[in-house]
């Protein structure tokens, strides 16, 4: 072996050894920082821990504390703790995001803060840096193949007398229910300003209703047990039921499909801004999007995600085409009007 070769090898060994040595002494960027986020519970939280908390811990030393509860209670907590924020990152849905923004709880972020922001479907970022979506979901039709002879093709088909007492829908307390009502109205000549056609269709469906609930858990349980045979329900959840062997099928209703989003936002006044931004970046990454889609069948919001062929057809919404074709929802109008809609619902559906 020539001296030259030995020298090269030695240099290579030194080159390998040195970064190891310095990494050993190197601190992770956010070592010891903790950020608090409100969570969902169950499988979804597990996915977030796997695809977001773990990588953040490994790469940056950030500890993520997920607080169980509902989005609404998290909003209330954030509202009452402005001077010493209870959360560093707030997870919200379509309606709570707008309330939180109006209430001044959120700090806007830019692409410089959260690089993955640029990878998100533009349709899905209506409030810009105030809220970054990390999954999308749709309320689709679900029916029990064993019991339903004429599968419903539209939301209004739930009025089919065959389904008497076997229909469960979301009421207006659920963002999915709101969107379904708007779709129902628009498909019958109405609009978000005029929901009368929607309410009229609801009246037709009413005799078939076992229940109109706000709880996805209850809907899930009722479908699983065959108590209800048809519903408008989160497609991701129906897929989970199908995986468990329930004889259900999902139909994209004739009324246009509209999406619901869940967002992450940076809370104003957080003491761990840098770590919080890393969290937001990680949760909107392709890696996390894919993990969420795989685990709970919710739609990825990151454009760079390609779903494996096995679940490609099952995840809604997915694909640039479908997403571009989903009509937008004027959520500001919803926020303004929902109270009166709920009152109307309470009066009419008694």
């Amino acid at each position: 072996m020539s001296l030259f070769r030995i020298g090269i090898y030695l240099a290579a060994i030194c080159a390998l050894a040195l970064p190891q040595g310095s990494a050993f002494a190197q601190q992770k960027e956010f070592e010891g920082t903790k950020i608090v986020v409100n969570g969902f519970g169950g499988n979804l939280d597990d996915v977030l821990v796997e695809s977001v908390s773990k990588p953040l811990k490994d790469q940056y030393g950030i500890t993520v504390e997920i607080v169980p509860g509902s989005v609404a209670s998290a909003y209330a907590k954030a509202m009452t703790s402005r001077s010493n924020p209870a959360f560093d990152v707030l997870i919200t849905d379509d309606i709570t995001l707008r309330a939180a923004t109006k209430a001044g709880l959120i700090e806007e972020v830019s692409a410089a803060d959260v690089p993955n922001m640029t990878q998100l479907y533009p349709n899905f970022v209506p409030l810009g840096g105030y809220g970054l979506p990390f999954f999308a979901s749709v309320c689709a039709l679900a029916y029990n193949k064993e019991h339903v002879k004429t599968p419903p093709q539209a939301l209004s088909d739930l009025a089919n007398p065959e389904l008497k007492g076997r229909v469960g829908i979301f009421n207006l307390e659920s963002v999915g229910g709101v969107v379904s009502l708007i779709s129902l109205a628009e498909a019958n000549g109405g609009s978000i300003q005029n929901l009368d056609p929607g309410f009229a269709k609801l009246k037709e469906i009413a005799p078939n209703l076992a229940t109109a609930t706000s709880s996805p858990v209850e809907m899930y349980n009722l479908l699983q047990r065959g108590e209800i045979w048809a519903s408008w329900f989160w497609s991701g959840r129906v897929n989970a039921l199908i995986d468990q062997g329930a004889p259900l099928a999902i139909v994209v209703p004739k009324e246009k499909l509209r999406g619901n989003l869940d967002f992450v936002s940076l809370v104003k006044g957080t003491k761990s801004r840098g770590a919080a931004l890393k969290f937001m970046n990680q949760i909107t990454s392709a890696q996390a999007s894919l993990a969420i889609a795989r685990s709970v069948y919710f739609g990825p919001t990151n454009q760079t995600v390609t779903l494996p062929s096995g679940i490609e057809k099952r995840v809604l919404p997915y694909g640039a085409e479908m997403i571009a074709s989903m009509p937008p929802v004027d959520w500001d109008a919803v926020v303004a009007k929902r109270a009166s809609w709920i009152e109307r619902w309470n009066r009419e559906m008694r």
Partner: protein
Amino acid sequence: MGQFLRRLAWSRDIYLAGLLTPAVVAVMLILSVPIAWLVRISLYPQDQSYDLSGWSAVHYIKALTDDLYLGSLARTTLYSLIVTVGTAILGFPLGYAAARGRLRRWKIFFIVLPLTLSLIVNIFGWIMILGQNGLLNSVLLSVHLLDQPRQFLFGVGTVLVVLGHTYLPFQILSVMSVVTQIEPMLEEASASLRGNRWVTFRRVIIPLAWPGIVAGSTIVFILTISAFIIPQLIGGASVQMYAVFVFQQMMTVLNWPFGASLSLILLVVALGFATVFRTIGSRTEEPKSAVAK
């Protein structure tokens, strides 16, 4: 002088006030902010949870004149009274038997059992029992009392039954604890005077146990009138109990001022009834001796 002061210090009034003070101070301290906030926020004119300013009673006017809310308040009160009376009637014999009978330890276990089941899981259990694919239907179908499964879930009746079932243990325990304190001698004395069971119950036991019955009923009434999880999940679309509206306004619509005014109205109504119950439940005669005079 010291003697006199010492007597004064130990005088009954100050002693009793002293006993009461820790509880009152603790509760007033802890509830000070919540109640003050509740009152203040109910008097804002806005319909949202932020940027609140000004004073207005507009939400109270709406809550007290709009038939949707007023009707619900009336209905909820009625439902609560039904549940209260129902649990009182059922709870008294069960509480009595638990106090006097054998197998006391097991009875207490079965009474406390429903209280330990988490609300959500409890509701799942009811879905499994009352649903069309549920236990009740299977039993009724197999003995041919029904030829088609019937929907027992969802509806006013079901809500009342489940509420009653959930809160019955409170009534039973309340009666039980009071009956345990009644000297068995009294019942035996009544029996030895050739009073049959019903007379004993009517003239001796019920009057003595009355404070316990009423205490239990007060708790059941308050719990029922402010219930919202059970009515929401088991009621279906048609049962609209008042506290559900409170939930809707506070958590869904985020109209905190209106939600707060609904809450205060509920508070006043419930406490009003509690006061009435207390009046019914108090005994105006001299406290009875342990030994019949």
